[in-house]
């Protein structure tokens, strides 16, 4: 191959530079988000693992059930505590600080839900 003495080292250098961000961060998962849990409440509407993965599904189910089917607005946790099936009036009653709860994971995962374009977050957290 013509000019292999220059091409191959240049290619290696190019690949090394291109992948440098990966090498730089290899073996480091980054700082895990630590959403602040409410202090006065210990039980959520569903198990924590389900809430972590599927809270958005639950919110959509609540919305469709209540808006379209006139579903119950009050739910009960496994231990029998009543809660309001609503983001604004239910979730945010316990998780009253959006910045310390919602935003920590959402910014880590780089998701931008548009809940707060319409729903109002608790005043003290704004």
């Amino acid at each position, binding site marked *: 191959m013509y000019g292999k003495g220059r091409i191959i080292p240049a290619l290696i250098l190019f690949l090394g530079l291109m992948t440098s961000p990966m090498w730089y961060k290899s073996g480091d998962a980054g700082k895990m988000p630590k959403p602040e849990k409410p202090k006065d409440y210990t039980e959520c509407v569903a198990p924590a693992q389900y809430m972590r993965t599927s809270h958005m599904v639950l919110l959509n189910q609540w*919305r*469709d059930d*209540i*808006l*379209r089917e*006139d579903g119950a*607005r009050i739910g009960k946790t496994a231990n029998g505590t009543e809660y309001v099936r609503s983001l*604004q*009036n239910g979730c945010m009653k316990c998780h009253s600080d959006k910045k310390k709860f919602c935003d920590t994971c959402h910014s880590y995962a780089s998701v931008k839900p*548009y809940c707060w*374009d*319409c*729903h*109002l977050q*608790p*005043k003290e957290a704004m």
Partner: protein
Amino acid sequence: MDSKRRDFLKIAGLTAIAGIAAPSAFNTLLKGEALASAGPAASGHGAAAPTGKRYGMVIDVKKFTENPGLAEQCVTACHTIHNVPDFGNKKDEIKWLWVESYDHVFPEHSQDKRPDGLKGMPILTLCNHCEKPPCVRACPTKATFKKKNGIVAMDYHRCIGCRFCMAACPYGARSFNWRDPRGKDANGRPFIKAENPKFPTRMRGVVEKCNFCTERLAIGQIPACVEVASQAKGLIFGDLNDPNSEISQVLKTSFTIQRNPAIGTHPSLFYII
């Protein structure tokens, strides 16, 4: 040989026709009715007996003439609890409940030789919550729909802001958010004076309208406007399908009119003039 070929061609032709016609025939037979007309017909021959609730309202205009300012109080109460923005100009106006002159509320009625008192008489008006809502038929995303209790409701999450419903509504009961309702005007005054933390706002680019206070009915309260007008008995709210409800009794004993009944939307709002 010839006759066999003829038979083959006949069978092939029939098969082809059946193959083409069958799917469309099935579709016609199995197709459901359009959503907007799925509810029980309000009148007409062989109408099904009404089942379930159908919320409606009687607006006693006389009571509002006797109590000037009451209509405005109703509007304020409604717009405050529902975070309805006030953009400060007619063009961008958002209205769930509003006051309009008699000749604009009932343009199809003859205005000829009417008493002077009727000319420009302010009348409170709102979404008719039609039995056959044209807005529901027009909505391409099912963002607006008719609930089992007769309320024509909206899911703002699904609204794409196409404004077909606004074109379809014959009563002008729908408003479009041309501007961000959470924003401020040039003087720094927020469009929503005091946000009600219990109810969401809307965002720019969606249509909104009266929801007959669905969220209040769910917790056993009456609509906000009805509550404000309750002392003067200006608004009577209730189940039109229940023959013993107050509203049914009022409708039985008083002469009422509806907005443009001839177009067949079957409004759930009735006016005593």
